């Protein structure tokens, strides 16, 4: 008998993907905060040049070595050079020699320019962190949708010409990790806006074509608040078209109508998402800009959802 499938948010490694600007990092930060409060040791892994978590947690710059950004929450950034040295060390076993190799100017140029090196050392680093028992869950913030697909495709791309050797091991362990339903989940983050929804539905369809990938949750972030009920919406509309036109309060009504329209668009978007994406879904209401408590609010919502 197979063990029951682990609840996606309790798995050791969680990937988050979605269109840029939908608030992936915020959702990740909230999940990490909720996990830390539940007594776990969450690690946020950022790929790329920019760090969002140091800003989100109002902490110091996040570097390659994991650092604590909030009570119980650690974050790390996969930077090319140290990740390369880590990879080479894992092969040569001697860190000083690995540093020499990584810093050799000719090899360095080769590594910097050759396509794939960046992705391979990133994959290696992610697998290394995933295997590290100090951390759990490991939450990986993937870049925008196109690049996430590239990331998941990488093992099969490399497969083409790696019959054996050390890179083969990197690819094999990454493939094994991605395919492990008990240890790994891929979550999609989106916002209820038309462009984002189209892209999310396409992304989901592409991920679904890969039976080896295991999808977790769909997070719908920044759902605009429902300010008006149906009756109020009708009143605003008729006032704007009639008695209130040109009055000093007409701009307030116009604003109300705009916000009602935005909410309606969001509702339609969410219907579209529910129709096309059969994943368990969590929604987060839009938070006020400048509110210091975005993460606290979202992590509270996660705790109320009762996922441990």
């Amino acid at each position: 008998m197979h063990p029951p499938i682990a609840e996606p948010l309790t798995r050791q490694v969680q990937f988050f993907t979605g269109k840029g600007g939908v608030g992936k990092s915020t959702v990740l930060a909230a999940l990490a905060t909720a996990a830390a409060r539940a007594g776990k040791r969450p690690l946020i892994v950022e790929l790329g040049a920019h760090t969002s978590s140091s800003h989100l947690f109002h902490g110091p710059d996040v570097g390659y070595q994991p650092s604590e950004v909030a009570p119980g929450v650690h974050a790390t950034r996969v930077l090319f050079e140290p990740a390369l040295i880590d990879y080479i060390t894992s092969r040569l076993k001697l860190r000083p020699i690995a540093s020499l190799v990584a810093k050799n100017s000719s090899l360095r140029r080769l590594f910097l320019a050759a396509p794939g090196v960046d992705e391979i050392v990133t994959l290696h680093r992610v697998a290394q962190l995933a295997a590290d028992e100090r951390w759990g869950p490991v939450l990986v913030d993937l870049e925008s949708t196109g690049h996430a697909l590239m990331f998941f495709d990488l093992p099969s791309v490399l497969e083409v010409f790696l019959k054996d050797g050390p890179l083969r091991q990197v690819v094999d362990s990454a493939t094994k990790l991605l395919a492990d339903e008990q240890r790994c989940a891929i979550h999609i983050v989106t916002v209820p806006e038309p462009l984002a929804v189209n892209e999310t539905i396409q992304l989901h369809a592409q991920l679904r074509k890969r039976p080896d990938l295991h999808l977790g949750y769909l997070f719908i972030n920044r759902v605009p608040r429902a300010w008006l009920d149906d009756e109020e919406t009708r009143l605003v509309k008729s006032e704007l078209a009639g008695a209130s036109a040109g009055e000093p309060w007409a701009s307030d009504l116009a604003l109300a109508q705009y916000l009602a329209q935005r909410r309606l668009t969001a509702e339609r978007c969410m219907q579209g998402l529910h129709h096309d994406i059969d994943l368990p879904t969590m929604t987060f209401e839009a938070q006020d800009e400048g509110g210091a408590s975005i993460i606290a609010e979202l992590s509270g919502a996660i705790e109320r959802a009762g996922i441990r």
Partner: protein
Amino acid sequence: MIELSDDCRLAFCVGVGGVGKTTFAAALGLAEALRGRSVLVLTADPARRLADALGIRGLSDQASDIPLPTTSGELHAAMLETKASADEIIRRAAHDEARAQRVLDNRIYQAFSNTLARSHAYAAMERVHEAVHDARYDLIVVDTPPAQSSIEILEAPARLVSFLDQRVVRWFLQASDESPQLRGGALAQGLLRIVAGQSLVSALTEFLTEMAFLREGFSERAKEVRDLMRSPSTRFVLVSSADSIGMEAAKSVAAEVRSRDFALAHVVFNRAFIPEATRSCADPVNYPERLAALAPKLERMRALLTAEEEQKRSNIVAFCDEHGVGAWSLPEARRPLGDPSALAAWIEQARPFSHST
């Protein structure tokens, strides 16, 4: 009105993802076309947003004509397909079908030309170079892919030149020779074999040998692209959101653009205001009796949104002062955009900011 100066031939829209960069690139291209120029908007984004913004069904590597309400200018749009562009580069440089075919059949070439971010960047810059030299266009507007790869694209030419440096490749390829100055190469190859494995090193050597004929042309072309980025007729436009997270990203992208001596012509903050929320909170409003029940809600709404806008406004002012640049703010584009007149109406709402220093 956001305009590029008449001498501008190439404009890069840069910024992190999700800020409306593609929509803005489309609108900027359109505004310039409506001024009578012949414009190509080129997207390097693997996601297909440019077609959505322009309200057309799809885009390909071949430029499509976008119908305009006027007859003076022209608007064209194309989406970069990495594989197609990369193959084209090889064919052109090879001058010989059989030689080109050997590269196209190479497994390393195949594995990477269509998959990796870095290949996208190389191919994108190649396409930009080609478009700039195409007499049909007065102006090329480039929508760069999001986040990190936006900068990646800017680095692609420099990296390519460095990689294609004859000495490095020869040093690597001829590592088995006996000459003493090449022994370092043998050592490097040996280390690389331990790190990357025999099969990859063999494949790489084969690839570099196969590519040897391309090096000369590539290197020259990459230098031309690098010069093009710093040409006086090239401008960079930074697109960002105006909330606090967006400001952090804008600062870091602006710093990266400047550190490369690229000309930052405009900074555009998108979704910075709602045209309906322009009234000041300070004005008391006497609502009529029939709206009394709704009034508290209307007041809360207005207070919240004007506060949000004020926060964004002060973020922008601070950015302008800190960087000594002017900026523009834009409201959120209303959907569906989908046609040139809606796009044009959107960008016309831009509000200027100037810096105090």
